[in-house]
């Protein structure tokens, strides 16, 4: 992935020499540049406006929220909706649920996938290839396919409406397989000399992993951490199937519950809760953009 992002836009010396000198310093046409800029601004609207609309609408009273003509800025800003977010549901509890589940899943996945990835990449043990193929089956199975038997299983062990299935299944089940794959790819590139040095110093295999390989795997771990956290944070079908009480809900499920007696959404409250869910992640993204882009691009590169 990283090696693909090589900037080759600078023409090579040969190409420059071959080009007529006048063309080399060709001035950028300002008209074209302005047109490009305008097009980019127009195209950015559907990406940026929803967030703006979400935040501003959450400060509107119910009477203003669906008003025509629409107001880009609340005429009479109120934080009333934010109070109701916490009155209608145990929202703080639900926030905490999402946060701690995602954190535990992320840490667990890093441990499980780095160990498995390391073993598959660096340790020659009988059956390694066969076992690796068995693990890779997880990449072929979308969560939706196994939801019925998993529901049965979770039900049979009495874990319905607990967070156990949302923690354990992602850490060692299908969702962690991509992480293991990425860790393995990383450890394959590790120079063998580093391990030899560790062995000379008397380190055991586990010691080599813990002291040498794992600390060196930081870029791969960062990628795994980001997409694992986002995956857990966004999970919807699994919580919907496994959880039943509002106290145990995670955020995506909780957001859909701000409805009135007729099932219609209470828009300003729902948007306030949505704002509280979205803005922290967006803020982290702004500060750690490169890591986010690289980490999430990995999810598009499985296999």
């Amino acid at each position, binding site marked *: 992935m990283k090696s693909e992002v090589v900037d080759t*836009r600078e023409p090579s010396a040969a190409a420059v020499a071959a080009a007529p000198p006048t063309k080399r310093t060709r001035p950028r046409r300002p008209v074209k540049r302005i047109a490009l800029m305008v097009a980019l601004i127009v195209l950015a609207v559907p*990406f940026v406006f*929803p967030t703006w609309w979400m935040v501003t609408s959450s400060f509107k009273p119910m009477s203003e929220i669906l008003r025509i003509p629409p107001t880009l800025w609340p005429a009479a800003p109120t934080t009333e909706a934010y109070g109701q977010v916490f009155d209608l549901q145990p929202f703080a509890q639900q926030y905490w649920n999402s946060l701690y589940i995602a954190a535990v899943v992320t840490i667990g996945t890093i441990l499980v996938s780095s160990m498995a990835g390391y073993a598959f990449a660096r340790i020659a043990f009988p059956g390694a290839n066969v076992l690796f193929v068995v693990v890779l089956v997880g990449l072929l199975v979308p969560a*939706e*396919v196994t*939801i019925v038997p998993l529901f049965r299983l979770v039900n049979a062990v009495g874990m319905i409406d607990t967070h156990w299935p949302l923690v354990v299944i992602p850490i060692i089940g*299908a969702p962690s397989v991509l992480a293991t794959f990425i860790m393995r790819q990383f450890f394959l590139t590790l120079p063998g000399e580093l391990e030899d040095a560790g062995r000379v110093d008397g380190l055991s295999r586990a010691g080599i992993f813990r002291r040498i390989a794992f600390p060196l795997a930081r870029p791969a771990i960062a990628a795994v951490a980001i997409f694992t956290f986002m995956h857990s944070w966004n999970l919807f079908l699994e919580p919907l199937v496994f959880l039943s009480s509002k106290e145990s809900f995670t955020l995506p499920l909780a957001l859909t519950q701000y409805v009135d007696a007729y099932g219609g959404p209470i828009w300003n409250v729902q948007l306030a809760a*949505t704002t509280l869910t979205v803005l922290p992640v967006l803020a982290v993204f702004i500060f750690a953009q490169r890591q986010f882009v690289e980490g999430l691009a990995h999810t*598009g590169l499985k296999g």
Partner: protein
Amino acid sequence: MSATLDRSTRRRATSARRRSTARRADVLTGYAFVTPQLVGSAVFVIGPLIAVGWYSLHDWNVLANSFTFTGAANYQRLIDDPSFVDSLKASGIFSAGLVVLNVGLALLLAVMLNQRMRGTTTFRTFFFSPVVVSLVAWTIVWGFLLQADGGINGFLSQIGVDGPNWLRREDTAMLSVIVVQVFKNVGLNMVLFLAALQGVPGEIREAARVDGASAWRSFRSITIPLISPTILLVSILTIVGSLQVFAQIAVLTQGGPGTSTTVLVYYLYQQAFQFNEFGYASTVSVVLFLIVAVLTLVQWQTRKRWVFHEV
């Protein structure tokens, strides 16, 4: 002489023994390291996969507490079930629409951002930002915008256009869901295309320009062929992802109006958790698995074949 020989042989034997002990320890460590993942694969992937196949051969209604072996009856029912055929059709329309719009827009954005111009990183941030927004949150906000009296129709009315009730009309509901999903994740594909575009050697395009090729011509005849593996890869990934669409449907349309947006996974969910037909739902699962598995295997094959393009 013989003493030294003896000593060196002994030393070699000791070191060989030490090495084999180390190897045995290595093997044990290897098994220990992969055990959690293997247990997880067995219990949460392979086992459930076999179970789904087994369930699909049964008439199993949870409420009626019935579990009887019926062989291929569920598969016959699947073929005769117009709702299932509708859900296949809905998934087909969703996937086709999504892949065309998503890949097209991603490519366009990537090409625009690949220009040497100030501010492109800011726009990259804009286009990528929905990717990090929670899916349900993004969908709720768009659902709000797409209401009959929502933001989009509100702004349309300002320019004298009477917008439809996007999510409640058969001819606009599916399109709306597709568009919402395109804006959500097009940034991811854009980034993949951007990486591919930056791998296209500037010399080739420069040479084409010297030969008098127009920008469009050089894009079509040089850039597109060179990044075609990425286009194929991104397309398959997008299709595989699109087959798993669920939350968007659950939040925006609940499969309606009629069954126009009841895609495969939503149909599966309805059968299992609304109608308690676990056996029949498992049959739908098997079909979904086969489609996704075949597409993913095709993707791995293409990646292997074009691996030299990835530098």
